[in-house]
């Protein structure tokens, strides 16, 4: 009898060891919610790592989003941080300041894409987006042409390494690039730490890794006419998906939708489509292109995407007119 009990105890220890062993080898789901960059960020991971290790990783991700949030924030001041607010509101014209390399990198990409998009993607349009933001918030009196005649000349920004200087009170607006930029960083950070199966959803700026246990991740694209449902879905691995739409931030006045995406050439909100969704390998580029393609007329955008094998796009012009690029083949 005593020996029997001994064997049973040994067996229980064996079971315990098996549990420990499997725990190390099995894929588990983790999820984390964050609030930064005026948006809700959700990160889902599928990994063999233990909760303890993942908590460290989530803390690092929290730090990444929070530090970039502070750097790119144009509405708030933070102690000891030279951020977009400082550059826009506190820095006098023609005075050089040394900025954080991380912020300089983002501005650099912005300037680069200004040139690549013939000025349609303009991070120097802070003065203009400010006018429209005020209007959208109150939704009362349309800005006059005079109100809109503000300086958005990107050449007034002089960035040399990480030395920043501005002129004519030009203001930067990194809203169309920051989320994509950090999301890309976070994705790379996860992969560097051996986590390949993940979904990062930063306010609709989605980046996914390699699906585990199934063919691919399924990402739905919101229906602009019924934002509680989706109009199509895509099956992707190792891609980023970003949507720009007229339903995200807007004001309806006299039957006209004034949304937050402003064409810097016309200085008015884009009104000829409801949403554009871009799928790309890189979250920054997908983020930038979703804004760019939203501003660009459909024909030009279609031509552009069809000549670029790295990017897929779907245009929701209206309920009856949905256009896909040649390589956008799902469902």
């Amino acid at each position, binding site marked *: 009898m005593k020996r029997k009990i001994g064997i049973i105890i040994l067996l229980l220890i064996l079971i315990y060891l098996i549990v420990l062993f499997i725990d190390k080898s099995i894929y588990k789901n983790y999820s984390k919610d964050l609030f930064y960059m005026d948006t*809700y960020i959700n990160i889902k991971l599928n990994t063999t790592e233990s909760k303890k290790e993942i908590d460290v990783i989530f803390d690092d991700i929290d730090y990444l989003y929070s530090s970039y949030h502070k750097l790119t924030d144009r509405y708030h001041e933070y102690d000891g941080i030279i951020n977009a607010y400082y550059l826009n509101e506190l820095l006098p014209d023609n005075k050089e300041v040394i900025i954080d390399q991380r912020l300089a990198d983002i501005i650099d990409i912005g300037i680069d894409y200004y040139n690549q998009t013939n000025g349609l993607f303009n991070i120097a349009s802070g003065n203009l987006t400010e006018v429209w933001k005020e209007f959208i918030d109150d939704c009362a009196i349309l800005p006059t042409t005079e109100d809109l005649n503000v300086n958005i000349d990107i050449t007034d920004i002089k960035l040399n390494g990480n030395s920043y200087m501005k002129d004519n009170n030009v203001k930067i607006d990194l809203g169309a690039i920051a989320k994509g930029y950090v999301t890309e960083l976070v994705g790379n950070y996860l992969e560097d730490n051996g986590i390949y199966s993940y979904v990062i*959803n930063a306010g609709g700026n*989605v980046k996914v890794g390699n699906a585990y246990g199934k063919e691919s991740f*399924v990402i739905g*694209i*919101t229906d602009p006419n019924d934002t509680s449902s*989706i109009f199509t*879905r895509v099956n992707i691995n190792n891609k980023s998906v970003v*949507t720009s739409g007229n339903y995200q931030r807007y004001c309806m006045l006299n039957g006209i939708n004034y949304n937050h995406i402003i064409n810097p050439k016309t200085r008015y909100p884009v009104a000829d489509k409801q949403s554009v969704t871009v799928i790309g390998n890189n979250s920054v580029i997908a983020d930038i292109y979703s804004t760019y393609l939203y501003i660009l007329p459909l024909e030009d955008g279609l031509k552009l995407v069809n000549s670029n094998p790295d990017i897929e796009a779907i245009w929701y012009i209206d309920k009856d007119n949905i256009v896909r690029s040649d390589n956008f083949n799902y469902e």
Partner: protein
Amino acid sequence: MNRSDLKIIAFIILLALVLYLGLNLMKKEGNIASIYYEDDLLMTVDLNTDKEYVVSGQLGDVILEVKNGKIRVKEENSPRHLCSLQGYTNSSSKPIICLPNKIIIKVSNVSDIDGVVY
């Protein structure tokens, strides 16, 4: 088969029945919404019963309404009422996010969608 065997069979059938009923009462057909303030679970609500709930968010009370198996934010104090504009949801792939109030409503049901771009 003796009487003890029959007893244990009866016990198991009873146990299975109790478990089945108990679990199904708790389960509510998967239509549960969880209300979070940031990362903290405030409460879970049953979407099968039409009812209103009040939770406190960053900017004050947020009133939630459950109707016909769906949930929405009925009233809240944010400057632009974006989260009441988001309407009803009954899908896990479409959480309602009240940003200024930091309230998240997640419906827990099985969804084949991993995320939604919006």
